[in-house]
């Protein structure tokens, strides 16, 4: 028994190293941070939502409808005018939903003709939290129907058809997307775009993490296997050595990611087919989006630039490692820099974040590939062009620094200091 205890003690000492603990502690801090962000966003999403209501009927029934909406914690912004005016007003006031109560609403309701209320939703975010407003209005309208249905039985006609009692008013959904308005369910539209883009963040995440690990291993192993010192005396420039390593690792990372992507695609295909069952509205939406070629070109460029950024950064960090294990530890910050924007862009709407968080996200070069497809969908040209320019500058500056360090004594002196 005593021997086992001695052995267990030794194993724990061997396993619980700084190399193991540092990434775990960093990840715990990171998840705590993400958790706080999510809580804040959730709280933000639960504060009363504003909606524009254009009441063209000005009747007791339309007033009752507005009262029920108010009781459901919705802030009503009364307005009137053409639909174009209302849409531009919504755009300016950052209100995403417009309800139009038509003329003769009360008359049609009383004569059991199920009047139609038009609900316009402006889609400018794909964040799951942005769905909460729509769901809140929909649930309020259900209550309106419940209340008006009861009133039909009590006041107007006990013999009214059951469908009219259940839905005395009908809501017709319209969506405004990329400056076009068309009839469609906003949640269904958002889900379709999300399903279409589901692979993009996954492949980006994998490629960037893979390439960092490949480079770290390549440089770490050169040091560990004592091949670097010889390589540096060959008649080739240091920049050539760096570029060779970066591209070699890049190709392997892309190949590995493609294999994984293929597996994920097989797994996801049945789900995506179910969700993209084509109503005419969805077909309209898909035809409005960027063409497949544009999407692929923009994503390919952003992926390539992200690879170069990851390669240059991991090269720079790995230079300071003495072996492959230490190199893996040193690139932990890169993994965090990739996972952070990945989570944020999947879960939250970047536009609704605080200014500090936005700046942090825009400083991280790996944020851009994650937001490119959305930026393309919403025609946000400055983000696309600015993102490309920033990633190029980042990669050039970091590669130049890495090349400088690679050409200096530092590449060997870290080891020398330890040896002496």
């Amino acid at each position, binding site marked *: 028994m005593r021997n086992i205890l001695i052995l267990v003690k030794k194993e724990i000492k061997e396993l619980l190293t700084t190399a193991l603990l540092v990434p775990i502690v960093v990840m715990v801090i990171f998840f705590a941070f993400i958790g706080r962000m999510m809580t804040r966003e959730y709280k933000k999403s639960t504060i009363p939502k504003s909606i524009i209501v254009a009441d063209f009927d000005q009747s007791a029934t339309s007033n009752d409808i507005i009262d029920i909406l108010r009781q459901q914690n919705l802030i009503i912004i009364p307005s009137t005018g053409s639909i174009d005016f209302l849409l531009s007003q919504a755009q300016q006031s950052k209100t995403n939903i417009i309800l139009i109560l038509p003329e003769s609403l009360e008359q049609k309701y009383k004569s059991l003709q199920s009047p139609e209320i038009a609900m316009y939703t402006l889609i400018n975010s794909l964040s799951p939290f942005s769905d909460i407003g729509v769901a809140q209005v929909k649930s309020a309208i259900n209550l309106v129907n419940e209340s008006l249905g009861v009133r039909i039985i009590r006041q107007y006609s006990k013999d009214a058809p059951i469908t009219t009692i259940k839905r005395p008013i009908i809501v017709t959904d319209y969506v405004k997307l990329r400056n076009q308005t068309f009839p469609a369910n906003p949640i269904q539209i958002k889900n379709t775009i999300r399903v279409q883009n589901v692979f993009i963040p996954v492949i980006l995440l994998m490629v960037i993490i893979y390439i960092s690990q490949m480079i770290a291993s390549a440089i770490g192993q050169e040091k560990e*296997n*004592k*091949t670097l*010192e*010889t390589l*540096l*005396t*060959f*008649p*080739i*420039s240091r920049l050539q050595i760096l570029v060779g390593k970066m591209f070699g690792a890049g190709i392997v990372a892309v190949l590995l990611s493609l294999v994984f992507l293929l597996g994920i695609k097989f797994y996801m295909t049945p789900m995506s087919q179910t969700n993209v069952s084509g109503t005419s509205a969805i077909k309209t939406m898909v035809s409005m989006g960027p063409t497949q070629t544009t999407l692929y070109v923009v994503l390919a460029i952003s992926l390539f630039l992200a690879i170069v950024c990851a390669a240059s950064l991991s090269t720079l960090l790995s230079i300071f490692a003495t072996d492959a294990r230490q190199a893996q530890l040193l690139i932990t910050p890169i993994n965090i820099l990739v996972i952070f924007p990945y989570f944020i862009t999947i879960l939250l709407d970047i536009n609704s974040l605080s200014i500090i968080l936005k700046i942090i996200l825009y400083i991280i070069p790996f944020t851009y590939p994650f937001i490119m497809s959305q930026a393309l969908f919403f025609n946000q040209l400055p983000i696309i062009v600015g993102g490309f320019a920033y990633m190029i500058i980042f990669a050039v500056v970091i590669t130049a620094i890495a090349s400088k360090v690679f050409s*200096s*004594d530092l590449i*060997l*002196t870290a080891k*020398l*200091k330890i040896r*002496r």
Partner: protein
Amino acid sequence: MNKACIVNGLTKSYGALKALDHITFEINQGEIFGLIGPNGSGKTTTLRILATLLRPDTGEAKIFDCDIIKQASEVRKLISYLPEEAGAYRNLTGLDYLRFVADLYSTNSEEQTNFLERAVNFANLGERIKDKVKTYSKGMTRKLLLARALMTNPKLAILDEPTVGLDVLNSLEIRKIIKQFVKEGGTVLLSSHNMLEVEFLSDRVTLLKEGKVVETGKVTELKEKYHARNLEEIFFGVAQ
């Protein structure tokens, strides 16, 4: 006599530690020049500076008239460096490793074939040359690396402890390869803390102690000067 290497007043510090303190020596073309001294005397630092891996703090060094700082890329074409703790790419076969180096140095396929044949002869590993490096013994790896260092016919081969950690037979074989390389017109700068080996191989030697040159000359002349039977006794005398 043409000079293969001129070292003049090299100094190098790592923080507070002065690794080299104004060292000066010259190497003639076609000779084996030994750099000897105990561990930490500055041998490896000197070789790394001459191999363009480290920059000296002060002083200058030229290899076949090329400045090691200003013309580093030219120097790299003239030299070949075998570090003390060198390794080869473990997942390549010995032959693939030699081919990789031959590709980097050669300008055409004929030259590449020549380099490769020369290396295979030097390494003398038989069929094992086609096995992965990770299956090699220490002696086999060292022979492969020495073959790599000499295959391109460098004008100056810089060898740091070429026989370190090897058994007698492997050491003898490596010494034979070095002698053959010089016979064919090459020049060698080697370092070792094994003074008897240096005495056996070298035409001239420089003795280093705590980063300073304490003596330079032909082994026979130094023996006479210090009335010593071998280099170890000379070094002991100088160190006193």
